[in-house]
């Protein structure tokens, strides 16, 4: 598809918590199938921007669009609720701390939303759970509880849970930051496969190597603005902005020291 209009369109996003301005007029267009990484120091507003896309942290200014639908529409409470629940079904999100439902098995975690929201029967939902688990390589864990899984397995289940809703876009907020180093790769692999399947993804990450190998475009954020953006080859190997260079140098030093 050579669709010219952006799939996800963030226009002049502005966000303040009280007097603290966290996002300062950020615009970001993501095309269908595009994979965008957002990097930057802690506190720069990466999560806030990501969470604005499904209105989990509503913006104080600007607009978010998914295809031809405005996500953060101003509507009366009840209408807004109905609207946002529909929109969120189309936007998958993966959290740093997995947020699996501990009282449900892996099967329950994956089937809950499709059954409630898409009216799938128990059999249909089961089949869906089996498919999704096969994708993330955890078919044999379907009847386990989250507490019986490793961190990497939990995150793979969380990804399967999000994918079971057949979202148009996937948002990842430091999906591997809470994992022991040896468990990072299995999650990265799942994300790489999604990339190969042309899932539209916006990925907040501290893993520059991963971002470089998977993403089409990288945004460097600092203090609520996009300081620099471009293809990974430029951002990682030939950054134009001083702040980007400083960040990458410091990041490299921290990770080697």
């Amino acid at each position, binding site marked *: 598809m050579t669709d010219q209009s952006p799939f996800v369109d963030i226009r002049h996003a502005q966000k303040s918590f009280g007097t603290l301005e966290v996002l300062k007029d950020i615009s970001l267009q993501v095309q269908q199938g595009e994979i965008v990484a957002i990097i930057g120091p802690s506190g720069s507003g990466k999560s806030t921007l990501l969470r604005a896309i499904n209105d989990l942290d509503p913006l104080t200014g600007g607009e978010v669009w998914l295809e031809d639908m405005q996500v953060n529409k101003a509507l009366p409470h009840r209408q807004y609720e109905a609207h946002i*629940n529909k929109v969120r079904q189309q936007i998958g999100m993966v*959290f740093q701390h997995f947020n699996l439902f501990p009282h449900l098995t892996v099967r329950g975690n994956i089937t*809950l939303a499709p059954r409630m929201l898409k009216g799938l029967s128990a059999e249909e939902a089961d089949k869906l759970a089996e498919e999704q688990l096969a994708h993330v390589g955890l078919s044999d864990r379907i009847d386990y509880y989250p507490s019986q899984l490793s961190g990497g397995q939990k995150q793979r289940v969380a990804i399967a849970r999000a994918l079971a809703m057949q979202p148009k876009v996937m948002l990842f907020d430091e999906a591997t930051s809470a994992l022991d180093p040896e468990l990072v790769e299995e999650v990265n692999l799942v994300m790489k496969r999604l990339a190969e399947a042309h899932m539209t993804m916006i990925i907040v990450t501290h893993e520059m190597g991963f971002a470089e190998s998977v993403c089409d475009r990288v945004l460097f954020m600092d203090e609520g603005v996009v300081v620099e953006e471009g293809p990974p080859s430029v951002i990682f190997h030939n950054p134009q902005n001083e702040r980007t260079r400083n960040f990458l140098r410091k990041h490299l030093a921290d990770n080697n020291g």
Partner: protein
Amino acid sequence: MDFELMLRIYPFFLEAAWVTIQLSILTTILGLICGTLGAAARLSRFATLRFTGAAYVSIIRGTPALIQLFILYFGGPQVGIQLDAFEAGVIGLGVNIGAYMTETMRGAIISVDKGQREAARTLGMSQFQAFRRVILPQALRLMIRPLGVNINALIKGTALVAAISVVELTYTAQRYIGSTYKPFEMFLLSGVLYMVIIYVTGKGIAYLDQKVRLQ
């Protein structure tokens, strides 16, 4: 110690224990109802309800339960509320413990990790759906033990209704002291029966907690 007297008189105490048990059960039920409504009010998105819930909790917790019982039982008729002693006991104690249960339930609900709500909402669930299918099942598990503490307090609190002459364990002890002049034996009998009731209840709650506990 007069064992012979105790053996002779204990059947009357068993009857009284049954009254205490009935009081405890009905009070627990009413308390859970008040607690559920109270917690719902405290967590409502409407300010008036939040205020009402908070007022209920602070009034009840800010005054002695005995005064609440007296107002209801002795003061009630003045404003047209006619209750017998047992009814007044159940309602007074139930509304009282309900305020504590309000805080217990609210505490359990808000202590469910906020990431749970976020994950549910992100999948597209409504606030109500997220609450019912994700938050509440976890909160219920978290509240069993602290509700057990409330119920333990409630059972001991039933002794207060002796003051409005409900013939339960404490009142019965006092009554037989009048004719036997053996306060030690009489209160001991009551105390032992309270302990049995509390012990069994505690075991039940621990079992329930164990049964539904998240691994």
